């Protein structure tokens, strides 16, 4: 028989009170804080959908069994997972429950007078006794005033206190953490993020259909898009001739916003701003501008086709789809801005600028499947059901002719990828961040201390107390004593 353990009967509210007290205890907060750090680790070791969707897909292909298990525990979306959210929500409830009562207490303490001078000063630290005069108390008061102590004068004694900034800073710091969290949640609930590719000479109009990808926060939608237009007039990418590394990207744009039209310049670190929406220059590549004709010489397609860069020298791949030709024609292409004169097959680029551009392609005919309803990549063509017509390559100004028609490479223009982000919460997060640093500074460098002085005829007694045994009080007391003695 096991002994019965007596459990104190707890009513419902008592139970809740108990749970609340446990949750808001410092120890729980500390454990939650450490848990949050540990919980953040897997997301940095396992690829995440938000940062590296390709790697996640590769893992599913390479090791489907493991990937399935990872997915079951949200390990590809750690920072949005239920367990990660649970930790930080608990942490912040704990934080609120811990900090708000302290704020109230601190407010009261700041308005209250310093506590009365203890009867027996000699038992306290930094106690000193010396002979003084009738001016002693007056001098002490002046010194306290000059050094901005809060004082309580009681006949023959003064109790003085300083350094509330420490606790104030500490509270501000913790409150600012709450503000940062509010900003972050606000941004993710009411924010928006999308991308769009714009070739030189084209316009981006801020409506949902202009986007290549677009996602909204849970509590917002398409009507939140602010109406503006951006036309890409010119883009220049500069590269280092020695290392081929990019040096600078500049995009000249014409903006239309609120009926006003103006010119502007975008760089990687210089986004355009429209209220809470910012537009970033994110990536760039080349669009061959082609004209495709059918066998009668009628134009079936004309315009810039963005190609997707594959390496640092901007060798790019892409697909030119001509659904209006009869039969439908597709080009599986590869574009190089600076063609390397290799003898073998395949295209290699040796520099990212347009020094010797060349478009290489294979030509296919048949049903491109654009009406099948299955979403397709604009950069690829599924050639399984198509018939190969030929292989070719063109440089700007050249035309390649094949039995079903011809393709002309008119010119090549750069495209840019715009990232459009709306984040109404980030200013709160920023304010929170600034307050956090200021709060930390005053909380970690601030010193809270009390000094007492009592005058009894000729006898002057002083004592001091430093909270958290902060250093420096000894020196301060020395100065205080010399001031009372009238020494300079």
């Amino acid at each position, binding site marked *: 028989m096991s002994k019965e353990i007596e459990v104190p009967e707890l009513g419902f509210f008592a139970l809740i009170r108990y749970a609340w007290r446990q949750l808001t205890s410092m120890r729980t907060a500390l454990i939650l804080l450490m848990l949050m750090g540990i919980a953040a680790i897997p997301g940095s070791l396992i690829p995440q959908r938000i940062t*590296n969707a390709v790697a996640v897909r590769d893992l599913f292909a390479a090791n489907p069994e493991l990937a399935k298990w990872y997915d079951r525990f949200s390990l590809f979306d750690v920072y949005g997972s239920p367990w990660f959210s649970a930790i930080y929500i608990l942490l912040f409830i704990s934080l609120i429950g811990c900090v708000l009562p302290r704020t109230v207490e601190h407010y009261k303490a700041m308005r209250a007078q310093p506590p009365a001078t203890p009867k027996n000063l000699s038992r306290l630290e930094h106690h000193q006794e010396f002979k003084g005069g009738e001016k002693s108390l007056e001098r002490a008061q002046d010194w306290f005033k000059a050094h901005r102590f809060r004082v309580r004068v009681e006949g023959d004694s003064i109790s003085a206190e300083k350094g509330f900034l420490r606790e104030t800073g500490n509270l501000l710091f913790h409150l600012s953490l709450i503000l940062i969290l509010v900003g972050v949640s606000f941004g993710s609930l009411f924010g928006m993020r999308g991308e769009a590719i714009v070739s030189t000479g084209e316009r981006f109009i801020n409506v949902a259909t202009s986007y290549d990808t677009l996602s909204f926060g849970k509590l917002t939608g398409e009507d939140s898009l602010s109406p503006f237009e951006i036309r890409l007039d010119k883009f220049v990418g500069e590269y280092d001739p020695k290392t081929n590394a990019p040096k600078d990207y500049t995009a000249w744009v014409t903006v239309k916003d609120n009926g006003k039209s103006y010119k502007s310049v975008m760089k990687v670190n210089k986004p355009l701003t429209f209220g809470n929406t910012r537009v970033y220059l994110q990536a760039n590549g080349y669009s061959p501008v082609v004209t495709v004709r059918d066998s009668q010489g009628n134009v079936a397609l004309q315009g810039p086709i963005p190609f997707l860069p594959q390496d640092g020298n901007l060798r790019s791949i892409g697909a030119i789809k001509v659904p209006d030709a009869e039969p439908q024609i597709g080009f599986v292409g590869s574009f190089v801005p600076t063609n390397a004169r290799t003898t073998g097959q395949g295209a290699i680029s040796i520099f990212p600028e347009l020094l010797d551009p060349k478009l290489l392609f294979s030509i296919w005919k048949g049903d491109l499947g654009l009406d099948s309803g299955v979403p397709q990549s604009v950069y690829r063509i599924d050639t399984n059901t198509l018939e190969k017509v030929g292989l070719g390559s063109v440089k700007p100004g050249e035309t390649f002719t094949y039995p079903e028609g011809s393709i002309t490479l008119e010119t090549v223009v750069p495209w840019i990828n715009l990232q459009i982000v709306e984040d109404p919460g980030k200013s709160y997060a920023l304010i929170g961040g600034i307050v956090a640093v200021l709060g930390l500074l005053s909380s970690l460098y601030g010193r809270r201390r009390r000094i007492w002085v009592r005058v009894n005829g000729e006898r002057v007694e002083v004592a001091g107390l430093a909270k958290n045994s902060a250093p420096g009080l000894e020196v301060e007391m020395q100065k205080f004593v010399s001031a009372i003695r009238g020494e300079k």
Partner: protein
Amino acid sequence: MQTTWAYVSNYFVYSAMAVFTISFIAHAFETAFAVRAPEVADSTDGSLLTKTLDYKRTEKTARIATAMMILGFILLLAGIIARGISAKHVPWGNMYEFSITGALAFTGAYLAALRKYDLRWLGLFVSISVLLTLGTAITLLYRNSAPLVPALKSTWLVIHVIAAIISGGVFLLANVVAAAYLYLERVEERGARPLWLQRVPSLEVLDQLSYRLVAFVFPLWTFAVIAGAIWAESAWGRYWGWDPKETWAFITWVAYAAYLHARVTVGWRGRRAAWLCIFAGSTFLFNYVYVNVWGTGKHTYSGL
């Protein structure tokens, strides 16, 4: 192709390494020769306990050791400035440049702390760590100085990196002190300290010192993370994206916050606090080494 300034920078870095080597040797000599051998007459019972420490004998060596440390600091600083001139931007574009700047910050943190505390015993560890860092940097991590990728062209980069590197230097110094604490505690458990360790301050002082160092730079580290977020916002359109580098910066921040809480609010001292301090510092190192070299994400540039 290397510019003349890049060569000048390399010469400075090599000279700094030579000077740090001298400093290391001087620190070693200082400790070794302060031990005064027992007078022959005294040692009839064969006891070694009559050995004494006399730092007056090695005061000169000690001065040389510190002077060399300062000279090394200046040479390294010159090397970093020359590197910046050669690249025409602040020299924080790749891991080689981060490493030599980190070594500078670490030396600087030591020299600054030396003004306030009697820390000369630490010089041996500092000089050897700096030597190892510089050696690794120049042999394994060296890259020709190159232009910055466009995303790195930002004032916030400069601010963020300065803050992060200084924080790193001080965090690592705190780690060395905490490690010294743990080692000495083990030694003292077995009995009295051997002679060569007698100059190292008491356990209590070490314990306090590592806390002071962390408390001193924690706001700076917080600021570094925020400056990084501001920079990310203007370059990538989001201030926080859980990129591996950002994630580990956050983990480091949380680990140090936990350390401060454990000390200030729960009252941890001594061994447990030292281990927590070392753990927090390791997350910083891990971020630097692992995420830069093997990681993926937006913070891995220019092939290191």
